[in-house]
């Protein structure tokens, strides 16, 4: 009985949370079909129309969330849901480091997921994220534009971009900011494409991952950029968090 009560308590605290709408604008991404890095020519992926936060979740947003949901404070967090690096730069439970409108980082997947649920949203699926992130300022799929790929690669090489404020990169075709240029972002199914980290082995195991590797020019660059994202995701576990990893929320399109 006691066990049951405890279980009930745990479940209830995990399932329900305070819902306070935060002023996070969303943009609509019109669905379509795209060929992901891991796909083959005949295996395109259909993405339904959905809504996505215009900006990544900020430090200030996340502070509000932990104040309203104390179980997710730095000192209360269960090790099951976040490892020691959770909010590691926060000096206290309610004191973040860095700018209020810089992206919230060092947040585990569980915490990110919870945050979005509390907003009545969810984390974007990996395909949704990749689909939205193909866009540059002008076109929905800029993956073959050399300068666009070079921009992404340059960002991957620039240290400490997590200190920049949200909205400081470009607004893409869908009206969404910062998909490239500030931090990596969690997705709902981040670990469904397995990259062992041994890239040459990945070549053998799943040759599809190298579908475009024989091509030259821009498509090579495109794959390089995408590879780094998939490799990063592959190195993470749901309880991990990282200085360069933030998140934003999405939701299904309401009719």
């Amino acid at each position, binding site marked *: 009985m006691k066990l049951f009560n405890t279980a009930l308590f745990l479940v209830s605290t995990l399932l329900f949370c305070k819902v306070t709408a935060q002023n996070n604008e969303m943009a609509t991404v019109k669905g379509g079909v795209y060929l992901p890095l891991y796909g083959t020519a005949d295996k395109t992926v259909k993405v339904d129309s959905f809504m996505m936060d215009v900006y990544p979740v900020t430090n200030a947003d996340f502070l509000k969330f932990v104040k309203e949901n104390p179980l997710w404070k730095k000192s209360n967090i269960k090790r099951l849901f976040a490892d020691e*690096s959770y909010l*590691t730069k926060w000096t206290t439970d309610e004191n973040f480091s860095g700018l209020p409108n810089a992206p919230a980082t060092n947040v585990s997947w569980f915490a990110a997921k919870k945050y979005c649920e509390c907003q009545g949203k969810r984390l974007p699926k990996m395909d949704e994220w990749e689909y939205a992130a193909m866009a540059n300022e002008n076109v929905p799929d800029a993956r073959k534009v*050399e300068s666009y*790929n*070079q921009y992404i*690669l*340059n960002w*991957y*090489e*620039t*240290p*400490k*971009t997590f200190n920049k404020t949200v909205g400081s990169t470009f607004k893409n075709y869908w009206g969404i900011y910062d998909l490239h240029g500030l931090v*990596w972002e969690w997705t709902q199914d981040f670990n469904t494409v397995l*990259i*062992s*980290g*041994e*890239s*040459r*082995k*990945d070549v053998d195991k799943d040759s599809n991952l190298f579908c475009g590797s024989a091509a*030259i*020019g821009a498509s*090579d*660059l495109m*794959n*390089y950029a995408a*590879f*780094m994202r*998939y*490799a*990063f995701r*592959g*190195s*993470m*576990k749901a309880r*991990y*968090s*990282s*200085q*360069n*990893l933030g998140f934003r929320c999405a939701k299904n399109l309401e009719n």
Partner: protein
Amino acid sequence: MTLTFKKNLVTKMLLCLGGVVFLSGCVNDQSDKKYNDTVDIPVNQEMIAELTSPPFVPTPVGKRMAKKLIVDLEIQEREGEMTGGVKYVYWTFGGTVPGSFIRTRVGDEVEFHLKNHPDNKLPHNIDLHAVNGPGGGAESSFVAPGHEKVFSFKVLNPGLYVYHCATAPVGMHIANGMYGLILVEPEGGLEPVDKEYYIMQGDFYTEGKYGERGLQAFDMQKAINETPDYVVFNGHVGAMTGDNALTAKVGEKIRLFVGNGGPGLVSSFHVIGEIFDKVHIEGGSMINENVQTTMIPAGGAAIVEFRVDVPGTFILVDHSIFRAFNKGALAMLKVEGEENKAIYSGEIRDGIYLPEGGAIQSMPTDGVKKEKEEVKAFTFEERMKFGKDKFTATCVACHQANGQGIPGAFPPLAKSDYLNADVNRAIDIVLHGKTGEITVNGKKYNSVMTAQALSDEDVTNVLTYVYNSWGNSKKEVTPEMVQAVRNK
């Protein structure tokens, strides 16, 4: 009860004693016994591995027994200087390019701790060519930022091995500097020498061309085309020249552990003015003797040994020679001590020989193509700074770091009567080259300087720097003066 207890105690003590005897037996055993299979070499005791930054190497293993060796290596993504005024974001094992040198002996059991600094943006891993196992450890060491991975391996094959990062995209991780060397010494260690150094070649691909100022991004297309802007020893231009040159004394035996991280180019490693007495070909057990230039494949290494017999500055190069003089693959070994005229006489006679005729050789220019607005110097201080960078990038190979030149070959710029006598002549030489005999500070030089493909701004800066250094006349050169000479 008491009895049993005592009995137990006695038994324990006996066991203990036995243990000690057994252990020491073991120890004696190991020094005498030869193992046919290095897998069978037992390890005893733990030791934290000494790691060193290039060009230095850890203490030789000597006669020590095989141990459990703890290697603690931290990955850092950090900005560094490629050459004067040119910045680059390096990805490093241990904060340097190449990464820390790891020194082991056969039979060691290495417990590898790979740490990815929390500020880093990317996951990394390590593939050590000294490992027998899938991916050389890459699979077990794939580590997210802010995490640490531990794996262990036993070193079975003696030799000098490359390690590198193998995370997708592999080429980019290597091109940004993620490589280093791990040495596995044979039982009893390598034969002792007087000096040992660690050198590793690598090629770099930047958005701007050689010497273009500012933070330079990695250029993937150039990397795919294998057309590097920089080919350097130990991560940047001038890592081992001038004050940072390697040093030795006459009569000393030198051993160089030379690796090639690539990612693209194969190295033709050569020391100007020396013959390698011994080369462990490709870092393995086969030894070649009396070698002029040894080939080091990308992802490979070599151990070269030689005795320095005469004093002087010996230049280490990749003998694909444009890489040495135009892309940075140049290092120096300064040897001090007594001359030995029997081995090397110094100059006896000098005459000019120009098989391509007396015409001035010129460097190809890009014509009208101008990609980026040039950074201009506004103050004298800036002129001096930019000028020094340009001097380091372009002139230093011949005229040397302090403008002292090389007697008999390249005239000095320091306290140079020839230079100070006529500024327009100096501008003209930089712009159009110079060939034939000149007299500088009472000594005759008969050599060739090629025309330099430098902008007016560059020429102004570099000459201002030269005129205001090393006891020269402190003349300030202006872009107008350069333009006037160019338009003549």
